[in-house]
Each structure stands twice: as structure tokens, then as C-alpha cells.
């Protein structure tokens, strides 16, 4: 009898059930989407914060002072220690290698630039009349280098760690991007195994050079593949593939410093402690947390004779920004949960209130309060589960859509979320129904049947 009553109720009142079901579905969908976005926003914003560039710097242990003012290096070339380029792929072998977004080695080399043979006579005259040879810094680095560690292949370089670097390849190639395949896909960025260079925009303006021109650097005629704009010191420098810089310096395999961009956990009380003073358990916990300090420690272990330091400007600030945004999303998620719980409750209350006559009839035929309530709760349960399942799928789609349109990546939905969401849906539906069921049951059947609500 009981299942039949419930079944008939759904069969005959399809429209009303549909309305309540839609309310539950929408409420659950919004709740699912918001929870999914809020749990994933930390990771997403952390990745976006990487657009501030590297947060770790590896230098040789016995590094000497940088004597640099306004991007001009005043130190003699042979001075100082170097890291070995062969050690760099080991960065991918550290404990938190999944958190390392990319790294870029740097090798500054002081060079002289002069007029090259291809210059027009006017430019050459200017150079003779002006300052002739110029002392500038050439920085060797990876642009988008293919490397491998063990079986793992990966690409890294400044295009990942320094996303604000912009290269314009000039009007010569802008017009016909499809001309040569290699450079067309790079849009002015040189290949890592080429002899092409980038020239900073202010240096280029001073030298009267454009993309495609040839520039003589310490006696080598090199092709300028693009003009680099960074808003920093590099605007006054030349940026070249690392191998080329090593050739010019005459030190194959040498690297001056390595910028590492890593996803980190915001600092807390544990992160700031000195690993030397920790007990083994605390040390393990510290070592296995992706704090910027512990990643620096592991990088130092991975690369011989190195010293890794956090770049405090980037590393210290991302924690605050991250926790602010995460906190904000959490609070908004609560607001969303509250609003959808209220919507579901309201819909259920209305649906039950409308069925007083039915309750009156059942009671007049001798049904007890418990039996009547049981029918309503069974209906609510069915609605909640059905609405919960549909709502969860819709919410997952919604979260994916948000992830794709805003962050250009998937928002992961934890499977654990499913039972939690269904439980919340059932709870909220019941909570919304309780007051209405109580009132419907208390109502005198005589009045209800006479239609005096």
C-alpha cells in the first residue's frame, strides 16, 4: 500500500513534483558548482600567480657579489663561480617536482656590440661618429628548451617562467607569418639550438636595429629574430640561447643562476622554522609540505654546490593574495549553500502546503500522523535523491564550464563530493519539509476537506 501511495502521488501530480524537483536540482547544481570552484580555486589562482615569475633562485654556493646598476653588469667576466648545466634536469627529480612549473637558467656575459657589415652607410656613420662599440650584457637562457630527466620529457625556459616577456618580430615577418614554418610558430622567439638573438627594445632603439637585422656581437654576426620588451633590465640587454652565450664566454656548460617557478603552499608557523632545529617527525612534515623554504632546501640538495633562495618579493606576497581569494570564495560558497538550501526548503514547504486536502482525506480514512508523515518523507527522499543526482551532474558541468572559460583548464570534481552533496540535498529537503508536514498533519481533516485552508 505504502509504495503504491507514493507511486500514485508521483504519477498523478507530475507537474507539482516536477516543480519541487526542479528547485532541488537547481539548488544542488549551484551548490555543487560553487563547492567545486571553491575547493579548486586555490590551485587555479596559485597557477595564475605564477605569472609573477619565478619565486626561487639558485646560485652557486661560493657566489660573489653582483655589481649591477640599472641592468648593466660592471663585473669582470671571469669572476665568480658557475653551476653546471648538466645538473639542471635534476630539478625534475626533487620530491616536489610536480609543483615545479618551470625553470630558466641565466648566464650573463659582457659583450661588445658593433656595426655589422650589412648596415647601411648611414647607420655605420652614426656608429663611428657616436660611441662606436658598446658594452652591453648578453644573457644566455632557455627559451622553450626540450629536456629529459630519466624517461620524462619536458620543456622549460623563460617563456614559462617569465610570462611577461613580449617579443615582437617586426613588420618584416608580421605580414607573412606562414613564410618559414619554424619562426612562424615562435613569433620571433629564437630556437634554443640556433644562433639567433633577441635584443631589448631600448637597446634596439639605441642601435637602430629591427627584427631580421644582423648585429655583430663580440665579433660574431648574429641575426636578431625579435625585439624583446620586458619593462625590466632586459630591455637594455641582449638575450641569446644558452649554448651561444657559453660559446661567447668560452665556458661550455656554465650557468650563473637558475630561476625556478614553483607552486607553493602559503607560509605558516612551521614553514619559517629552521630545519636544523626540528625533530625528525616535524622535519618529515616540513620536508613533505610544498613550502617555498622546503622546495628551496630540496633544490639545494639536488644541485651540487648550489644555494637556493626564495625571491621574497614573489614568494612572500603570493601567500596573502592566495589566502584572501580562497577565503572570499569560501564565504561566497556558504552564501550560495544557504541560498540554495532556502530555495529547496521553500519549494518543499509550498508543495506540501498545497496538499492539505489530501492529508485530510487520508486522516479521515483513519491514517495516523506517522503514516501520513512517512509518505511525505518518502516522497521528499525520492525527490532529493533524484534531484541530487541530476543537480550534481548539472553542477559538475557548470563547474567545468566556469573552469574552462575563466581559467582555461578543467576544474577537478572530487568523487567524494557526490555522497556529500546527496546527503546535503536529502538533509535540506527534509529540513524544509518538516515544518510544512507538521502543520499539514495537525490540520483538522474536517476543515481541510471543506476547503477552508
Amino acid at each position: 500500500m505504502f509504495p503504491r501511495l507514493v507511486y500514485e502521488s508521483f504519477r498523478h501530480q507530475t507537474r507539482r513534483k516536477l516543480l519541487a524537483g526542479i528547485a532541488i536540482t537547481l539548488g544542488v547544481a549551484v551548490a555543487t558548482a560553487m563547492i567545486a570552484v571553491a575547493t579548486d580555486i586555490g590551485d587555479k589562482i596559485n597557477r595564475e600567480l605564477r605569472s609573477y615569475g619565478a619565486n626561487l633562485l639558485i646560485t652557486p654556493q661560493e657566489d660573489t657579489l653582483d655589481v649591477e646598476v640599472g641592468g648593466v653588469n660592471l663585473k669582470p667576466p671571469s669572476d665568480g663561480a658557475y653551476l653546471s648545466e648538466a645538473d639542471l634536469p635534476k630539478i625534475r627529480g626533487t620530491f616536489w617536482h610536480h609543483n615545479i612549473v618551470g625553470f630558466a637558467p641565466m648566464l650573463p656575459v659582457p659583450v661588445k656590440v658593433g656595426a655589422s657589415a650589412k648596415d647601411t652607410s648611414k647607420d655605420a656613420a652614426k656608429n663611428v661618429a657616436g660611441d662606436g662599440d658598446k658594452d652591453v650584457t648578453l644573457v644566455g637562457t632557455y627559451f622553450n628548451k626540450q629536456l629529459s630527466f630519466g624517461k620524462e620529457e619536458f620543456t622549460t625556459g623563460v617563456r614559462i617562467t617569465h610570462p611577461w616577456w613580449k617579443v615582437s618580430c617586426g613588420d618584416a615577418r608580421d605580414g607573412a607569418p606562414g613564410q618559414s614554418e619554424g619562426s612562424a610558430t615562435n613569433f620571433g622567439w629564437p630556437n634554443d639550438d640556433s644562433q639567433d638573438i633577441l635584443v631589448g627594445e631600448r637597446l634596439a632603439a639605441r642601435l637602430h636595429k629591427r627584427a631580421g637585422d644582423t648585429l655583430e656581437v663580440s665579433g660574431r654576426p648574429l641575426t636578431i629574430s625579435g625585439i624583446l620588451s620586458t619593462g625590466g633590465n632586459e630591455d637594455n640587454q641582449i638575450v641569446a640561447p644558452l649554448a651561444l652565450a657559453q660559446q661567447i664566454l668560452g665556458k661550455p656548460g656554465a650557468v650563473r643562476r637558475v630561476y625556478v617557478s614553483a607552486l607553493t603552499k602559503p607560509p605558516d608557523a612551521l614553514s619559517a622554522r629552521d630545519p636544523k632545529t626540528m625533530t625528525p617527525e616535524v622535519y618529515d612534515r616540513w620536508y613533505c609540505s610544498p613550502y617555498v623554504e622546503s622546495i628551496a632546501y630540496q633544490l639545494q640538495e639536488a644541485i651540487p654546490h648550489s644555494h637556493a633562495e626564495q625571491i621574497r618579493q614573489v614568494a612572500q606576497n603570493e601567500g596573502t593574495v592566495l589566502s584572501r581569494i580562497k577565503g572570499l570564495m569560501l564565504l561566497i560558497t556558504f552564501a550560495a549553500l544557504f541560498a540554495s538550501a532556502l530555495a529547496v526548503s521553500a519549494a518543499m514547504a509550498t508543495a506540501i502546503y498545497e496538499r492539505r486536502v489530501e492529508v485530510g482525506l487520508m486522516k479521515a480514512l483513519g491514517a495516523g500522523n506517522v503514516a501520513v508523515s512517512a509518505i511525505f518523507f518518502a516522497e521528499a527522499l525520492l525527490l532529493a535523491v533524484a534531484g541530487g543526482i541530476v543537480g550534481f551532474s548539472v553542477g559538475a558541468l557548470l563547474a567545468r564550464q566556469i573552469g574552462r572559460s575563466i581559467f582555461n583548464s578543467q576544474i577537478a570534481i572530487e568523487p567524494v563530493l557526490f555522497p556529500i552533496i546527496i546527503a546535503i540535498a536529502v538533509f535540506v529537503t527534509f529540513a524544509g519539509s518538516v515544518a510544512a508536514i507538521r502543520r499539514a498533519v495537525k490540520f483538522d481533516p474536517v476543515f481541510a476537506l471543506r476547503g477552508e485552508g
Partner: protein
Amino acid sequence: MGSISTLHSPKQVAERRAGAHHASMFVRMLIRAAVLRRRRAAAALLAMVVAAAVATAMMNLYVDVQAKLRSEFRNYGANLVVVAKDGQSLPADAMAKVESVFGEKTLAVAFAYAVARTKDGQSVVVVGTDFARARQLNPWWKVSHWPDASGEALVGMRAAAVVSANPQGLDRHPFDRQPFELTFQGKAIQIVPAGLLQTGAGEDSRIYLDRSAFENWTGITPSTIEIAANGTAAEIESSIRRLTPLLPAAEIRPVRQIMEGEANVLNKTRATLYAAATLVVLTSALCVLATLIGWVFDRRRDFAIMKALGASERLVNSFFAAEAAALGVVGAIFGFVIGIGVAAWIGRVNFHAPVVPRFSVFPYVLAGSIAIALVSAILPIVLLRGVQPAIILRGE
């Protein structure tokens, strides 16, 4: 509703409807309806208030959070740099001009650079600056002790290893404050280190001095001004355009690393917030719609009685519409006040600064509330219009 029955004929009804009594009757009906069914009315009002509060809070946050986050982003330091061209010094009034464009509140710090030699002939970069301002501009600097007397210096971690007589003692606290000697173009001075500076970047290789002490020693005036400019990218762009003609001997460059990073994170956050706000506001609007439709539908007997007693369609419609509008207005007012409170609370909890109430949001909340209330009142009435009053009154 008893007073309706005291009307005698359609003619009198028409007369009364035209007269002043009509208005008072109308108001009375509204009030009686609210009082007699206060429980259902309260539920409807509650839904309205919650929806309005949530909408107000979300709109307030959406507008204010961007400003809050921007000020968080200023902790990343300068986003504009003024540099003298060709290694010269900036004119003496450069700072005043920068302040005239950006306002006194904007943080601007001047830096002067010189390369000095240590006793054993090593080159080291010495910077003259204003410590109080540099500290505000660069809150990420890890400093063991800020200098409090003029002539004291802040020594970068790596520079300390070169100049300090006792490099092994660097980690010890308090830092060994042994004076050391530096020479610049034959002029030697004794420098007392106040503390160690650690940033993980170029600052670690430098020694920072108070500007007056630095100028007395080297005679070099600032060549760089770093500015932490507030505002949107467009506002900063226009400030640059105003400053450029004032300082022809200098280049004004945005720090792209900071500007683009900030724009990137801010855009993503704003878009997420927008999506979230839309979802939340839609859900609460739906909640109101469901509650109000149920409320009005429940009162189909009132509707039937009014029609049976000869009320015109216009009167019935305007009665329910007025009721809905009143509900919308009252709900919007209460909801607005609560929503402002919620936004302020979120601001305090999350950003440690209250969200400024934005009264410009109120018209939108009010219009939205009334619109939803009207829709949810009119919808059931339209459905009931074709039904004979007798059928409703018979309870079918």
C-alpha cells in the same frame, strides 16, 4: 473582507471606487491580508529579505573586492619606475613632480646608486634611500634590524659576507655591528651596519644607506624613483601620460612583471566572483519566486471571493500587484541593510578592512525585488483568470 458586503449596488460600488474611500479601502485590504495570514506573509517576506540581502552583499563585494585586492597587490612593491636617461641623475624637483601627479598618498621612493670599494678592493653597490618609505614600499624585505640613526646602513646578505670582518657570525642574532670602511672616488667613510637585508634578489648584493649620509659622502643624487601607483591599468596609464611632459629627462616605465601579474590574477578572480555572484543571486531569486507563487496561489479563495462580489479584473490585479510591490519594497529595504552588514563582515573577516557600503547598489536591489515580486504575483493570477470563482470557492 466583511466590509465589502456593506456595499449595496453596482452603482454605489462604482461611486465608491471613484471616491476617496476607495483608496482607504484598498489600503485596508492590503493590511488585513498581511495581518490575517501573517505566518505565510512572514515566510514570503523572509524569502524576499534573504534574497535581497544576498544580492546586496554580492554586488557590494563584487565592486569592493577589486579595490581590496588591488591594495593587497601593492604589497608586491613598485609598479612604475622613473629612471633618468643615460645614467644621469634626476632633476632635484623630480620627486615633487611625481607627487603632484600621483598625490601625496601614493608611495614613491627615490634611489641613488654608487659603486664603492671595500678595503680589499672589491666593488660593491651602495644605494642611498629613505628607509621609512622603502620599508613601506617593500614589505617583503626581511630585515633583522632597521637603522634608526643616520649613517647606519642596511647590509644585504651577500654584501655582508664581503664587508663583514666576521662572516661566520652573520647568522647570529643580534647581528655583529662592527663598522667597516668603504671608499668612493678616494673618499673613505666608516659605515655602521644596523641590520641584515634578505630578499633573494639583487638587493642582497647591495648596501643601503640613508640618503643624506649617502649624498654627503658621494655627492650623487637619486637616479631612480620607484612608485607604487594605485588604480586600474587605465588610470595608471593616464598618470604616466601626465608625468611624461613634466620630466623630459627621465623615462617612466611600468614594471610589466608586476602590472601583468596583477591584471592576470585580478581578471580571473573578478570573473570567478562574477560567475559565483550570478549563481547565488539567481538561486535566491528562484527561492523568492517559488515562495511567492505558492503564497499567491494559496489565496485563490480571496481572489474568488473578490471576483464573486463584483470586483473588476483591474482591481483584483492591482490589489495583488500592490501587495507584491509592498512586499518587494519592504524586503529590499531590510535585505539591503542586512546585506551591507554581511558584506562588511566578510570584508572584516577576509580582508581585515570593512567593505564600504555602496548605496548605488540599492536602486538595483529595489528594482529587482519589485520585479520578482510582481512576476510571482501576476503569474498565478493569469493562470486563475479563466477559472470561474464558484469552482475555486467549492474547493476544487
